């Protein structure tokens, strides 16, 4: 298939970016979106040009490294699918495809389609962990956990931290990511001892990183490759109110 690509090119963090047009000819339908870009890049390189830089790693939909906002939608048109798992058969021959980075002020562009998502790492450092004694591992299933809680924790833990939620949000809010990471631990007895501190400091970090505020529009849920539900956001709101009361009164 033949495609016209409009691609965001940006020299470095400081430079201003612009959309550039590329003609991608003879792209096999069975290529993944990233393979399509690989083909385009090979041609750019053999013509002596600077290839289009983009993030990727596993190409299996599990690492959260790939990104790209395709026709305005992070990870492209197919629901619950990462860009690396998106295939060209979902596009029409002759189509024009707009490819932009995961835009947000908290995700500055490093080069072309690569953005700096370390703000997420700093949110995790603030409280997305549990403190355990090092040493021999605890027996599995030593602590009984109700099936329902385990399932909810697992559902939240499926978040791969790709940042599509932020990229899709009209307010560049990180609530879906932060709430998934917080509820993953808050649902479990292992996360209980540090729950108050976790919730307060993760939210404080999220705010100071310059993410916006959730206005309950659920664009994040619609684009999330792992279909993390907005219930986690409700839970974080609730946990935050309770944590504040606990901290203020007890």
């Amino acid at each position, binding site marked *: 298939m033949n495609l016209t690509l409009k691609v965001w090119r940006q020299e470095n963090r400081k430079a201003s970016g612009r959309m550039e047009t590329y003609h991608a000819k003879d792209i096999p339908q069975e290529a993944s979106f990233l393979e399509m870009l690989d083909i385009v890049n090979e041609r750019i390189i053999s013509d002596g040009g600077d290839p289009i830089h983009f993030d990727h790693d596993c190409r299996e939909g599990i690492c959260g490294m790939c990104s790209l906002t395709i026709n*305005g939608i992070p990870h492209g048109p197919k629901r619950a699918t990462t860009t690396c798992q998106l295939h060209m058969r979902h596009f029409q021959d002759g189509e024009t495809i707009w490819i*932009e980075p995961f835009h*947000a002020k908290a995700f500055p562009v490093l080069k072309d389609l690569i953005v700096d998502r370390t703000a997420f790492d700093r949110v995790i450092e603030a409280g997305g962990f549990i403190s355990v004694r090092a040493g021999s591992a605890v027996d599995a299933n030593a602590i009984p956990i109700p099936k329902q809680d385990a399932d909810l924790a697992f559902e939240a833990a499926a978040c791969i931290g790709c940042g599509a939620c932020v990229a899709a949000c009209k307010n560049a809010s990180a609530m879906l990511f932060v709430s998934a990471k917080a509820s993953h631990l808050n649902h479990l007895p292992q996360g209980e001892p540090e729950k108050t501190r976790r919730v307060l400091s993760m*939210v404080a970090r999220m705010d100071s990183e310059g993410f916006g505020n959730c206005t309950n529009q659920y*664009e994040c849920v619609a684009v999330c490759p792992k279909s993390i539900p907005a219930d986690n956001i*409700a839970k*974080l709101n609730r946990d935050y109110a309770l944590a*504040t009361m606990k*901290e*203020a009164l007890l």
Partner: protein
Amino acid sequence: MKSFTRTIGSFWNSSIGKKILVALTGIALLLFLPAHLAGNLLVFAGPDALNEYGVWLHELGHGTAIWFARLGLLSAFIIHLILTVQLTAANRAARTDYAYPSTVQASRSSRSMMWSGLTILAFIIYHLLHFTLRVGNDYDGESYQTTLPGHQEKVHNVYKMMIDGFSWTPASIFYLIAVTLLCSHLSHGFASVFQTLGVRSSKTSALSGKLGWAYAIIIWLGFVSIPIAIWIFGYGS
């Protein structure tokens, strides 16, 4: 461990804290609207019913109740306004625009909350100047005093004020626009309260969305019926 005041300070400054306060003040306003509407609908029960209600409202708790209500509503309204303006400014600052913007499922109402809200603000300012402070009209004058069975002294003629107020076309048009945008604002606001206060889940999200629309439409129908009756069908003239 932070002190009480510092914890409350961080809450007020945090994104979730602000939103919870927006939701709580929103609830106060959501509760006020049906009460206000019920009072207004008394216009259809005739002059005496509406005027009697006006007197009752002003005399409740020896005239103190109305002031508590006014102060409460005003503070809820101001907090709601200041916080949403702050949140919106932060949201604009956080977003980098796309060359190819797209929306997957965010509703039109949710995307126009600031505009619907500011129109409602403009309407409320007009409404308070018009009916509460009675600026630029003679609603405080002799011609708006009337007799009421069971009262020795003359009482304020709320009924006539309402009929005359809606007989002026520009006011009725502004009112209809404001109430329609209010309906849109409420549809998103009502459902959002559940999410922001953390009591929404996948099991209840469809229900809260429907309840939001049902509430908004009932409020809209109620408020719109009054000018339509007076202005279009000449009720009360």
